[in-house]
């Protein structure tokens, strides 16, 4: 019984693989990503759309130039159901059975971890656009690169910006998962080194539904800055609740999701002066502007102003590496590690597997655009402080 089902499954799955292989000569690029489950929100905003957009653009131009020959790109993307075991299993299929030419990373830090060791073992280079963790970069896996800024970079930039604004006291609220804790750790160190007073520090669990008591207590303490190490739903939550209780410090910062178009839509007319994690916008450069327009043309929605562009840039890097050295994955890895690449975010180089070209950044909503305001070298607008009152 069991044996029969295994045979059936094997042949069915084999069938799926062989029909895929019919599109001859195409460069097959596989990935698993969350289309369902709790990670789908982030993955479908910042990551998968960029995979699709890039493949479409490359194919429109005739394909990827591999060893002097243009070959179409064929994406093989599966839903990972936000389940880690499914992620691992799917990449095992892609790399061991389907033997795809290249793989793209799944969404988020946790899932990237699971795939990273596997990709590294099997020699598939991978540039992770939505993984942000010292624990991951500390593993120093030769085939794994991160292109998003890491917690200490983002938090040092934030602290430097605070110093420049003359901020003396802050209140911090953070999500109590790895991302929140690593960031708050880096932030605390940076604040201490600049002698900025930490008046209050509160954590909250993932999926929190009410933070107004915490915010009220913080308002009492009257800090110069409010800093939230938050995820998209809580970013919107703290912003709305701070407005409700009239908590309007000089600097109001909330981390992930401030850069989402959704944030602007949810806070209707109340985004002015809010800061958060962002690294680019259409003014960053001509290439960024084209990308922005192409994203809107394909998906009828704007890309977010942080990870989206990193995801797209990671594909540009992969493309340039392939066009340089062909599909030999070890050589692609070396090319990525050693080269400098032209991307929509400007030139990018890696050092120790991390993006060495883009420093930590701070962005701020100004008149409907999420402007990069820190550091000056990457700024698209001048910082506005103090934050205007909520409407």
């Amino acid at each position, binding site marked *: *019984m*069991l*044996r029969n*089902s*295994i045979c*059936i*499954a*094997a042949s*069915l*799955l084999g069938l*799926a693989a062989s029909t895929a292989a019919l599109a001859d000569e195409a460069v097959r690029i596989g990935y698993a990503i969350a*289309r*369902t*489950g709790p990670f789908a929100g982030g993955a479908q905003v910042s990551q998968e759309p960029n995979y699709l957009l890039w493949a479409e653009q490359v194919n429109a131009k005739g394909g990827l130039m591999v060893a002097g020959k243009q070959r179409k790109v064929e994406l093989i*993307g*599966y*839903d990972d*159901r*936000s*389940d*880690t*075991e499914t992620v*691992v*299993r799917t990449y*095992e*299929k892609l790399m*061991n*059975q389907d033997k795809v030419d290249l793989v793209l990373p799944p969404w988020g*830090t*946790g899932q990237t*971890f*699971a795939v*990273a*060791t596997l990709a590294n073992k099997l020699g598939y280079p991978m540039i992770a656009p939505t993984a942000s*963790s010292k*624990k*991951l970069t500390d*593993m120093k896996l030769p085939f794994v690169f991160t292109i998003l800024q890491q917690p200490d970079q983002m938090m040092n930039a934030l602290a430097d910006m605070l110093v420049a604004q003359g901020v003396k006291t802050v209140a911090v609220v953070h999500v*109590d*998962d*790895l991302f929140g*804790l*690593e960031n708050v*750790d880096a932030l605390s160190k940076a604040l201490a080194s600049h002698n900025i007073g930490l008046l209050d520090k509160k*954590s909250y*669990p*993932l999926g929190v539904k009410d933070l107004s008591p915490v915010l009220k207590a913080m308002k009492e303490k009257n800090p110069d800055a409010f800093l939230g190490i938050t995820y998209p739903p809580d970013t919107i939550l703290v912003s709305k609740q701070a407005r409700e209780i009239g908590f309007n410090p000089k600097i109001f910062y909330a981390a992930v999701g401030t850069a989402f178009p959704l944030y602007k839509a949810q806070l209707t007319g109340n985004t002015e002066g809010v800061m958060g994690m962002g690294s680019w916008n259409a003014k960053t450069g001509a290439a960024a502007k084209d990308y922005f327009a192409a994203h809107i043309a394909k998906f009828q929605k704007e890309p977010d102003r942080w990870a989206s562009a990193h995801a797209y840039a990671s594909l540009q890097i992969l493309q340039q590496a392939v066009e340089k050295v062909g599909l030999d994955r070890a050589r692609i890895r070396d090319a990525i590690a050693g080269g400098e690449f032209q991307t929509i975010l400007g030139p990018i180089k890696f050092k120790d597997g991390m993006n060495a070209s883009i420093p930590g950044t701070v962005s701020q909503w100004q008149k409907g655009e999420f402007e990069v305001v820190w550091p000056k070298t990457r700024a698209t607008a001048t910082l506005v402080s103090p934050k205007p009152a909520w409407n």
Partner: protein
Amino acid sequence: MKDWIKWLPLIAALAAVPWLTNAYMVSLLLTCLMYVALAVSWVMFSGPSRYLSLATTAFFGIGAYCTAWGLGHLPWPLLLLGGALAAAGTAALVGLFVLKLRGSYFAVLTFGLSELALHVINQTERSISGTVGRVLLNPPEQDAIYLAVLALALAAIACCAWLWRGPLGHALRGIGADEDRAATLGVNPLRVKLAGFALAAAFAGAVGAAMAGRWTYIDPHTVFNPLIGFQTVLIVMVGGASRIQGAVIGAVIFSLLSEFLRMRFPYFYLVLLGLLLILSVLYLPNGLIALLPRKKAAAHG
């Protein structure tokens, strides 16, 4: 009782799989076996007692954390045992309260248990190590995990068969049919339920401890994934709760089918899967197992 001998060739074939095929096939079978073990562990207690438990995720996660904490300090097989004991201990402790409730109250509370365990572990991790999430630096080989989960699946089946045949299974069945009546015939319901719940939890915990090695990185949200618990209950609904074969067949078919549909129809597979589930519940309310001929009910003893 000698039945199992005829299964030896299949067991041997399953044990040889890592040497015969590629890593994906091993991984696919591993998923099947993981859900076989989880579904059998679930049906072991909830089948006869009719206490619908949604705690599988909690026990699985607790087991996974045993590996996350112990790897590098203790030999891995010992960690599987640790995961089993930790899950069983939790089940016994929590069972003291929740097993007094019935029906949907029990289901809801057991679901809450995984949330509770998640937050307890989160707090513990933060206060002890100052961070959450653990990187498993030297995880066991995939083949070792496969063989361990195969052994756990077989052990769960054997344990379930033994349990159901003996007085504890008898008492659980009595409790499932009419708990107060069983008490008037000498059954101490709380004690029996605690034993059954804890034994079932032990297997889910051990499976969690085994699977954790595959993910490099463990954090509370990855291991306390509600999908695992829901899928386990669905599998038993599809396969049937009255016989062990129901859980086994359900787990294998469900795992293979959902994988096949997911690969073949990356965007619509959930709709298809949902449709198949509804059809199976409508037309096979007693599960796939109802399609298999039933041996004459074996007399007790």
